[in-house]
């Protein structure tokens, strides 16, 4: 199939949103866009599986046009299993995000426009096979977030929006240094190139890799809450409107993880091995320290934001461990965490819309008054603490198994440290569930609250479906991802 469709579709619909009039029309167009995206990405999956059965090229459906000849920037897109998985994730989250924003009244036209525009950036990013093009789409995805938080946010939104934008911009700047390094040091038939396929086939010399790898990895790492550059996450998420939180945690943080994998590790595998120890240590700190910090939070959004720091640590750990299984695990964790955290933010938003508080101490007994929302909250919680049958378990266990495969006391210790987080996660999740969903009703005004409306129910069901499909039948997803990982592993052959 023509991959450009995935870019044209959100673009056309986002322009259409600007043209149509009235809340009903705007949100209908947005919903149509989201449904069409989901349909298109499922179609992509089917086409991809069919094509791969007969074609064992590393990337399928490639398109390559020169975009800006002077700098040799190409519009080069193509997908492997990893990118297909990320595209699927994006379309699930976008659909749910549009649905939970159904009642959006303030500046709804601009709001939905930015949501769709953001999804355009994400699709472009995951499709790109040209580092510069990728960078372009990364920026496309950053700017709308600043506006979404600054305009539609709550609490100390200006501070949070600015903090998020500045830190992500700093990340982008680092990424830019990294890719400039890649470009100017590349030599493919006597020319510089941004092309991922060519760069991967002709990697830089070892010392150059070691010089430029930290720029790219830390730059993308900031997006995925690499310790100690994670502090934009709690403030950013908690100030953002529901849909923006969902996008931020569900998709944006995955741009970082994907970048760490596709650009930093993919193109500079020697350096990835060289820095592996440092990455693992930082990931372990993020995992455990993030989990302990979550334990002390009292605001539901802060709980989920800090737990995202911990959960994204698994992505970095999987990448740092550099075994095939651990990298598969990292990709699975990106998909799983994207779905799960989007669901969490969605239900937190639903609770907040009704009770106007996110403080755990002021909630309580919600299961009695809003059984649907509460049940979804519990399921999201159980997914977060890694209950089998839900996606979190599959991803975490793959990371653990993969990490343990790397022989050596250091790697085993690191794995145990990461494993220990499953206990802390259980503590903070059950505390949140116990005092907000269960227990006696603390505020009598809550007795008259209503349960989820159709759009909220649909949003939850979409994400739950993703979580359950992945949790109950993970084999197809690993089969999808695995060939992509194998391409990388050929370059890291020295580690089992």
């Amino acid at each position, binding site marked *: 199939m023509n991959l450009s469709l995935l870019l044209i579709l959100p673009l056309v619909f986002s322009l259409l949103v600007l043209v149509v009039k009235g809340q009903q029309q705007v949100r209908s167009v947005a919903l149509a866009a989201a449904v069409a995206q989901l349909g298109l990405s499922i179609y992509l999956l089917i086409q991809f599986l069919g094509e791969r059965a007969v074609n064992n090229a590393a990337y399928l459906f490639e398109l390559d046009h020169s975009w800006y000849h002077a700098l040799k920037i190409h519009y080069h897109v193509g997908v492997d299993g990893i990118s297909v998985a990320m595209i699927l994730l994006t379309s699930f989250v976008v659909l749910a995000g549009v649905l939970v924003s159904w009642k959006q009244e303030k500046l709804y036209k601009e709001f939905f426009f930015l949501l769709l525009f953001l999804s355009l950036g994400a699709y472009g990013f995951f499709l790109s096979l040209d580092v510069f093009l990728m960078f372009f789409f990364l920026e496309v995805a950053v700017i709308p977030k600043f506006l979404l938080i600054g305009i539609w946010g709550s609490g100390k939104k200006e501070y949070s929006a600015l903090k998020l934008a500045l830190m992500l911009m700093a990340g982008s700047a680092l990424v830019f240094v990294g890719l400039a390094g890649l470009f100017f040091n590349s030599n493919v038939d006597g020319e510089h190139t941004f092309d991922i396929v060519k760069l991967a086939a002709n990697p830089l010399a070892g010392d150059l890799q070691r010089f430029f790898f930290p720029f790219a990895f830390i730059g993308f790492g900031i997006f995925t809450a690499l310790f100690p550059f994670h502090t934009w996450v709690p403030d950013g998420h908690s100030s953002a409107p529901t849909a923006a939180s969902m996008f931020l945690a569900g998709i944006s943080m995955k741009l970082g993880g994907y970048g760490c994998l596709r650009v930093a590790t993919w193109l500079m595998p020697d350096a990835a091995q060289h820095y592996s120890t440092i990455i693992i240590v930082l990931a372990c700190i993020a995992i455990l320290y993030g989990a302990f910090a979550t334990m002390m939070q009292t605001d539901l959004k802060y709980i989920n934001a800090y737990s995202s720091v911990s959960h994204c640590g698994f992505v970095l750990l999987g990448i740092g461990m550099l075994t095939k299984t651990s990298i598969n695990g990292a990709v699975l964790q990106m998909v799983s965490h994207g779905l799960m955290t989007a669901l969490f933010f969605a239900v937190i938003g639903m609770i907040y819309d009704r009770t106007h508080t996110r403080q755990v101490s002021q909630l309580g007994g919600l299961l009695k008054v809003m059984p649907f929302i509460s049940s979804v909250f519990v399921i999201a919680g159980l997914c977060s603490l890694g209950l089998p049958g839900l996606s979190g378990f599959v991803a975490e266990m793959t990371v653990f198994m993969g990490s343990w495969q790397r022989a050596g006391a250091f790697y085993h210790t690191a794995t145990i440290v990461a494993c220990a987080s499953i206990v802390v996660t259980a503590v903070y999740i*059950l505390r949140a569930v116990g005092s907000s969903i*269960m227990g006696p009703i603390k505020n009598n005004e809550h007795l008259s609250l209503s349960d989820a409306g159709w759009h909220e129910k649909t949003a939850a069901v979409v994400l739950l479906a993703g979580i359950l499909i992945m949790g109950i039948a993970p084999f197809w997803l690993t089969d999808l991802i695995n060939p992509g990982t194998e391409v990388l592993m050929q370059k890291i052959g020295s580690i089992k």
Partner: protein
Amino acid sequence: MNYSSYIALIPLLPLAAFVLLGLFGRKYFNQSAGIIATMLLLVAAGLSLYTAYQYFFVNGKVGDAYQSITAVKYTWLTFSENVSIDMGILLDPISVMMLVVVTFVSLMVHIFSLGYMKGEERFATYYAFLGLFTFSMLGLVVSSNLFQIYMFWELVGASSYLLIGYYFQKPSAVAASKKAFIVTRFADLGFLIGILILAFYGESLDFNTIIHNLTTQQSSQFLAITSASFLGVSALTWGLVMVFMGGAGKSAMFPLHIWLPDAMEGPTPVSALIHAATMVVAGVFLVARLFPVFSINSDALTVVTIIGVTSALFAAIIACTQTDIKRVLAYSTMSQIGYMMFALGVSGYGGENARLTDSVGQGLGYTASMFHLFTHAFFKSLLFLGAGAVIHLVHSNEMKDMGGLRKLMPITHISFLIACLAIAGIWPFAGFFSKEEILLAAYNKSMVVYVIALLTSGLTAFYMFRLYFSIFWNKEAAVHDHHHGEGTLSMKLPLILLAVCSVAAGFIHFGNYVSSDGTALASEFHLSFAAAPLALGIGGILLAMWLYKTANDKPERLATALGGLYKAAYKKFYIDELYLFITKKLVFNLIGRPAAWIDKNIIDGLMNGIAAATGWISNLIKTLQSGKVQNYLLYFFGGIAALVIIFIYIWKP
């Protein structure tokens, strides 16, 4: 009939009940939920019995050994070439036995709950959760893969969490459900690490393969795992002890037992199913499943023995002092599981027959442990359901609110008495036979273990009859609500059936069917050996009778006489307080709070500091570009002056 054609239905039928009632129960089946779930489980129980018949009497045996049959297996998640999670159904003596136990007890609990839970607002949800639990437990016992068992292990934990917290508006139920999950989660961390170790060296997750790899002395895997060591202990021991940690958590072994008494906050039939007969014995089952590997590692077996025997005695002492009847039963469960655990610990692998004179190497302990698991499931769930019927009548868990109930509830009384005799180990009730085998196995291996076990069996008889006399005798009944009585037929029927099993189960020649290596293990009965435990048991009963049959002040005088010991036991030896101190004071205050503080102030402060520094520097710089020509002129001439000075005075080539 081929097993694979229907066997998967056994776990899937309860799952169907869960899905159906979980999704649509509240709306459409709030009245009929109980009947639907019970019918589905009836079919599952029928299929299990049929499977047991087929396996034990028709085609399970090849030669003179029962075979391990993998009836169903498909790959669920591949990690690497040899290592994958397979969903499978493994049939061997212990899994077939557990199929029967789980479906039968679950069926009894389903039927009992029809009356007991009638009129509950979340009736359908209750049955949905029961279905989820039964599915998970069945999946656990038939697991063919180490990771599969871990998955269902977590699922039974989650369903236990949901059921303990069933009365979710009660803060104590919420706290208990949280505690149960977190304590067992902590133990599961050990289990997970154990899996990682065993899978790493064993190069497989499949039970049969991993057991083969790790018990074949010449295999590369065996050599690797025994030669690798950490802190002077071999990787094999680490792996097994870590796996056992998971088992100890789930089976409420000391010191991970603290969640079980609190778990009694759940509805009583749930306690009968999950916290007496099935889930809590999962730890024993896990050790039995990996027993061929355990049996070649005496260090791990020693750990199992010590933990088991400590738990047995420790819990029995506490049980003597508790006044909440469900808590007495909970501690009794812990004590009995301790029996099963140390029976495995003192066991060897294989062995044709066990004789009194044999000192080592025989598999009697294994058979005895499984036998006790089997009989215990019946009489302990009977005790809980009986307690449930009593609580249903008097609306209290406290002994002081009971007494003299024998006339009001004759069937409950008789069945409860049978169960008490069974657990006390009185001939000819089921507990006598299984406990006898355990004691014999302990006697063969270690005198210390034997003496403690003997002592515990006396204590068991005492506290069970303390319970019995306090409920059914002691004083005149305070309740006179005769037509309420024992409840519906659905509540009486399970009591009768379980009472029958509590007598009949003991007469099964268990060693013929279940043994560590599949071949028949003949167990002999020695009157001389049985005399000591019987005498202690009867002594315990008589003592309880003397103290509690009629209302008097002897128990209080005794408690005062025992002083500190009584108080310590009553306070459960302050283990809960210790845990509370560690978690609340140490983990929260020394790790959690500092982590949150550091993040907010130092890490984020650093980021804000960088931003502030950037702002400060740019403030400085921006005066350089003020747009005022005079300033630029000043900089220009200042620069020239500086350069002149540099060139003339400082820079000398």
